[in-house]
């Protein structure tokens, strides 16, 4: 039973990803992205990575895609001429490259897993204190990357503030900016 559920989530994730690039309306693309994110979250649950699953749902589906939708709505993109894209040759090249990559990387990853490594993997994830051991890992072994990530967030914060304060201010010498509403 659970195997079929897993397979269904995998298909959902793949279908959502394909729909992101096929829909011409970016709102639908964003909604397809949510679908993929939730399916991935479910897959993480079924693989026993509970904490990652929750973070995936909260951060990606809850924050990132909402931000995307917010910007799409803010810019009111549905009425833009720019949306009328033609696919054609580019699509063919993109699809070809994609298929090539799936063939090479997917094939290698399919072939590379060796059954003898499974013996020990089951135990690590079976224990109840999975989140606890993850937290230990995060705050002991990965303390420096963790602190470095906080600097990235600081940089992003300052960056966004400066973009809004600097480019958002209507200025007399740049008349283009005033008619964007």
């Amino acid at each position: 039973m659970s195997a079929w559920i897993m397979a269904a989530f995998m298909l959902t994730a793949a279908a959502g990803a394909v729909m992101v690039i096929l829909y011409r309306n970016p709102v639908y693309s964003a909604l397809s992205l949510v679908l993929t994110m939730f399916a991935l979250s479910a897959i993480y649950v079924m693989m026993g990575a509970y904490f990652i699953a929750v973070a995936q749902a909260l951060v990606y589906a809850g924050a990132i895609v909402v931000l995307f939708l917010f910007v799409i709505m803010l810019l009111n993109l549905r009425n833009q001429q720019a949306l009328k894209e033609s696919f054609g040759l580019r699509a063919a090249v993109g699809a070809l490259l994609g298929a090539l990559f799936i063939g090479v990387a997917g094939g290698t990853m399919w072939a590379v897993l060796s059954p003898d490594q499974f013996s020990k993997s089951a135990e690590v994830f079976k224990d109840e204190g999975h989140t606890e051991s993850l937290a230990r890992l995060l705050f002991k072994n990965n303390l420096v990357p963790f602190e470095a990530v906080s600097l990235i967030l600081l940089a992003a914060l300052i960056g966004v503030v400066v973009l809004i304060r600097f480019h958002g201010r209507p200025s007399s010498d740049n008349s283009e900016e005033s008619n964007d509403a």
Partner: protein
Amino acid sequence: MNRPLKGLMTMMQIIDFDWGAFAPSLTLLAAALIVCALSMGHSQASAVRAAWASLIGVAAAAVLTLMSDAPALYFSFGAQDADGNPIALFSVDSMMRSFMLICLVSTALCILLSIGYLRQRGALRPEFYALTLLCALGMTIIAGSQDLILIFIGIELMSLPLYILACFQRGSASSEASMKYFLLGAFSSGFLLFGIALIFGSTGSTLLQDLTGVSSPLFAIGLALVFVGLAFKIAAAPFHQWAPDVYHGAPTPVTAFFASAPKAAAFAALLYLFQAASAMRAEWSTIFAVLACISMTIGNLIALTQKNLKRMLAYSSVAHVGYALVGVAAGASESVLFYLAAYAVMSVGAFGVASALSSKENEMSELNDYAGLGFRRPLVGIGMTLFMLSLTGLPPTAGFTGKLLLFKDAYAAGLGWLVIVAALNSALSAYYYLGVVVKMYMTQPSKEPAHAPSIRHKTAAAALIAAAALVFIGGAAPKAMMNAFHISTDAAETAVQNVPSEAAQ
């Protein structure tokens, strides 16, 4: 000068933390946080304060790096593997110091260039310097990283501020450049990260020390993806298409920054990975040789046709990445370091001339803007000539010494054909570099402007003088330049360290 390899790890000294070794990085961090706090202010005065504070911070970090000559140390920050042994996450050795010095010197020069440029355009804001320092911090992390995840985080910490810095000028060209840079940068980060995931899958670890001797198809694909990601970051052909547009659209001091420091940092990651993945070094050497060949040829050929100085220098930077890749292919890390240092100062110098001469009315980015400038502004003319000679690779400049070292090492490594291609490319590049000199001294502007462009800001002049001095020292006294950048002049040291690592496999 080699990175630690598995066989040596047992002898390697791994300690938790050491204040002395991290003094430069912590100085930089403190400066970054102070400047972030200064960013609260709105006024022009607070921006100037932030600029000077950041300059002092960068200079202090550079001086501390220059003075420290402790032996190579590896740091675990308390991290332990399953058996309780410390893990080497970060290293502070002479190579890390060299990369850090290259990045800090170019950062300092670009800060000096930016003050006047931004003030003229009403864009002088304290946040600019906060972001510059955070970017420099990211480069520091890359320079010492022994862990792929730390490298990824360092690259992101370096890139995010760069996307914003590209946007630091009113008008659509700057924000377009920023958007292009951002989309390509994020795209390349995707490659980098997926590659790291595959490497993790094939080795069960993200530590560089665990990559030694691994050779499996999955590992090869992962490494290839990481290299594609890094090739985007250093703008090596055929992954260079974003560079001319971004270099053209960004404010000129920021362009000078793009061309120097982040490139050197991405090269650090490339070199460390290349050295760590020892089992496939021969294959990668060939691939890098081909990549170097393509980069040099495409960069130089397209640069020939450019009428815009910033675009020309952008394509020339693609060519220079090609020259540096010759050294990577030959496995000669000292020559690559010297070349990166030389390229950093000479490209900052060349972009810096454009930046220092520009005014709000005249961006000084077209080649025609330089017609007849050599006689009207003799000092600027001499400086620009020096930078162009160095970019061509003619004595007595750092560019000449750098190319000489690279070609010598590449020839010794059996890459004779690549040396010939590189030498032919240098000859080709002389046409457009010396074209700038010819333009400055042998042509007259079509219409005589009332005031010839001049350098209005003392800070920009100081930056240009410093860059010119470094370029000249690099040519006249290469040893002094090597010492200044902590580049080991003792090739024997490398040879000695290579033997046990090869034996350990």
